[in-house]
């Protein structure tokens, strides 16, 4: 990995975000859901660093909590999409043949439709909620993993080390997951990073529409959706979660691409 200024900036941003979320697990300045009638919609101050919302809830605490929910959704999404996608991609890329052709046709068909539309269809079938959005996004994320992993396996299976392993009598399962998988790790890590970023943005979008995480749970998208009505009287309400999303996604993509 080449060290560039972009990577360094990205690493610093990711570091800040991680520190912020980890502190949030153990300590938040206030209870994220505690309402305070005496401190409604206050601008950032020494008492409330990022201000308060329309219920007097401390925004710093809520952003900490909300980031955790958003990251949980994003990680679970990538775990579902990544596991199934990698499995399908590995098998189709390695074995090829008729089934591979059919699956790739379906895969290409699905990816030609905008992912927002697909997510919305699945949500309207599954229903609304935190765990339902995880499954919906997880399914939508499968094809991108299949595509990347499959093309890698197609290249790797022709390589000498795979042929040697075969001659030595290694089983297919062993070759697939103990020999080839570690070799495609750099590309897999990069795909997972991009997937995580897209999942953060997708969670924000769906929760913003009111179709993802439901109150009283805080998530970054949910907070933005609630902040919309107070854009005039309390603009800091929207800025806090929004900037958090931007820092996260920007930091990771800078580290990833340099």
């Amino acid at each position: 990995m080449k060290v560039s200024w972009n990577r360094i900036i990205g690493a610093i941003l990711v570091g800040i975000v991680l520190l912020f979320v980890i502190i949030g697990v153990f300590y938040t300045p206030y209870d994220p859901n505690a309402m305070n009638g005496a401190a409604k919609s206050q601008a950032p101050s020494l008492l409330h660093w990022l201000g308060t919302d329309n219920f007097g809830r401390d925004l710093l605490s809520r952003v900490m909590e909300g980031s955790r929910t958003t990251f949980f959704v994003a990680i679970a999404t990538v775990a579902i999409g990544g596991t199934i996608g990698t499995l399908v991609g590995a098998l189709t890329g390695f074995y090829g043949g008729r089934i591979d052709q059919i699956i790739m046709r379906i895969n290409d068909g699905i990816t030609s439709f905008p992912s927002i539309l697909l997510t919305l269809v699945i949500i309207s079938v599954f229903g609304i909620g935190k765990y339902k959005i995880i499954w919906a996004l997880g399914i939508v994320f499968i094809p991108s993993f299949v595509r990347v992993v499959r093309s890698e396996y197609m290249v790797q299976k022709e390589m000498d080390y795979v042929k040697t392993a075969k001659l030595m009598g290694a089983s297919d399962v062993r070759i697939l997951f103990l020999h080839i998988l570690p070799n495609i790790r750099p590309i897999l890590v990069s795909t997972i990073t991009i997937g995580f970023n897209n999942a953060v943005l997708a969670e924000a979008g769906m929760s913003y529409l009111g179709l993802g995480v439901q109150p009283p749970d805080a998530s970054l998208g949910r907070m933005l959706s609630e902040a919309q009505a107070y854009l005039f009287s309390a603009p800091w309400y929207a800025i806090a979660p929004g900037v958090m999303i931007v820092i996260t996604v920007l930091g990771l993509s800078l580290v990833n691409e340099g």
Partner: protein
Amino acid sequence: MKYILKKISTLIITLFLVTIFTFTAFQVIPGDSVSSTLGMDASPEAIQALRHERGLDDPLVIRYGRWLGGVLKGDFGESTQYNMPVWNLLSTRLTVTIWLAAISIVLIFLFSFPIGILSAKKEDGFFDRLMVFLTQTFMAIPPFFLGMILTLVFGVCLKWFIPGNYVSFQEDKGKFFAYLIYPAIAMAIPKIAMTVKFLRSSIRRQMHFEYVRTAKSKGNSKRGILVKHVLKNACIPVITFLGMIIADVLAGSIIIEQVFNLPGMGRLLVVAIANRDYAVVQAVVLYIATIVVVINLLVDILYRVIDPRISKEGGAR
């Protein structure tokens, strides 16, 4: 010609599969429009009667055939939340979404090409590096958050427009476009960033080919090579990419409409999902999907017109 016919037949098959998908997806859900009309404590007899009246107790294939027959005639059924034909709901909202997407796409074309070319012209120059950083930054901003920032800056601080004060196309065309420009910008900026990034790397890849060196050794200026040779080649993958961007913009308007309070297809879809109004959901999904499939077809054809090297058998990708 044979190629185009083949492509069109693929398009029809794809659309057919899309109709099957959109129809059956909503059949697996427990409960149907009857339970939402009659409420939780309706008698089983009443439910059965209404189910029969609406034809919901027929087999799946018959219901699909009936629905598809209607769709082909422009009849998407009845919305359960508005109690009116879905088509009436769609027609006015379509104008908003199509115009919004169109303005956004024009902006993407206008800005991404000059910026991308300028950025690639001086590899790793100051402008290039600045653009790399800016494209990464703008790609990290969710469009709806960008929309909120635009509302804050241009609506609340500068007072260039009144947030939420949408004027319909029929009422006043000038005011309609003056309002639509802000959501269009919010959608366009992240996509401009993506296109610039793609175009830049596409040009840079071309710059390292042999033919560029040959042209250089023949005494052509860098500018001449860029304009006459490189751009032509670099634009071919960009066309496919732009096809994808157009589809994304169309789908992206679903969220942006919410930010700017626009009565478009997206708003209709989101409200319909929340209220389980499946006839509307099916119609909107089918509409957007059709546009996406048609755009893909146009991109494929355009591809062949621009680059005759692409062989008959699917060498396009």
